[in-house]
């Protein structure tokens, strides 16, 4: 470990692209195109975005019907109300699960995802398998995640093809009447915000 560079790493089974991006970093900083501070800021920006942000929005919507309406009509403004920073050139829209409709989000062309709120998408969301199959056989895909809506529930797939990023607003599970907002948020998983599963009362026991 030589020059105290913050991004040195121990080589193991490492992609050849690791050296390439580090080379680009060195060169860009060396030429003054970017600064280390700007790069570090971006790293911290991404680290601070997590699915817990989405869970907060959902838990608030479950307990405050007026907030829920604001979330559905202007999700960015609702996010700001909770102290989040959803700033992004794309729109951010929450789509509501109902007893008669279950929503599923995908980006077949790349991996569009509401990163400004939720952070990085899961690996499976970015996979060729999910991107190919979610539009054509959403029920088979959800079955792989252990979730199966009834036949009479409409499955609505949203392909994020353009300037909108989608997040599912799941339904509040049964038997959660006694839970406070924090406990409710703990039930809301990253997967439920994409729509491959739903929050369940049973998930609370997992801690």
């Amino acid at each position, binding site marked *: 470990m030589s020059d105290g560079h913050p991004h040195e790493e121990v080589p193991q089974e490492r992609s050849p692209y690791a050296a390439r991006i580090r080379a680009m970093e060195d060169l860009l900083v060396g030429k003054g195109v970017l600064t280390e501070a700007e790069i570090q800021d971006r790293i911290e920006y991404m680290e601070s975005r997590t699915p817990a942000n989405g869970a907060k929005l959902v838990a608030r919507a479950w307990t405050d019907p007026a907030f829920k309406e604001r979330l559905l009509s202007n999700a960015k403004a609702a996010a700001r109300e909770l102290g989040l920073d959803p700033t992004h050139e794309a729109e951010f829209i929450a789509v509501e699960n109902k007893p008669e409709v279950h929503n599923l989000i995908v980006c077949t062309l790349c991996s569009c995802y509401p990163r400004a709120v939720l952070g990085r998408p899961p690996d499976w969301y970015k996979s060729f398998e999910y991107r190919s199959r979610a539009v054509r056989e959403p029920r088979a895909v959800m079955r792989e995640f252990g979730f199966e809506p009834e036949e009479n529930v*409409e*499955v609505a797939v*949203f392909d994020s093809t*353009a300037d909108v990023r989608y997040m599912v607003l799941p339904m509040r599970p049964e038997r959660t009447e006694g839970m406070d907002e924090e406990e409710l948020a703990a039930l809301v998983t990253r997967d439920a915000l994409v729509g491959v599963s739903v929050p369940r009362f049973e998930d609370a026991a997992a801690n």
Partner: protein
Amino acid sequence: MTAFTRGDRVRVRPAGKPGHVRTPDYLKGRSGWISSVLGHFPNPEDLAYGLSGIPARTLYRVGFRQPDIWTGYEGPAGDRLYADVYEHWLEPEGER
């Protein structure tokens, strides 16, 4: 100034276009309806090459019945798919 409003029946143009395009092949030639008028955005097909993308294009959320997209769709006929499509990729259904 938008060509379509909510509820209009539309078809995705069955066209090919070289370069960066955000209308997926699986929707080409498929018919659906305008679910929502999402706003005006610079054209990504031009932005992709460093052009301004102006004039902005109207973006629509278009709804489709899944059986209308996929032959032999393995799910209930009530299932739906929504995609966000730019105005220049849409034509009124029945045109042509």
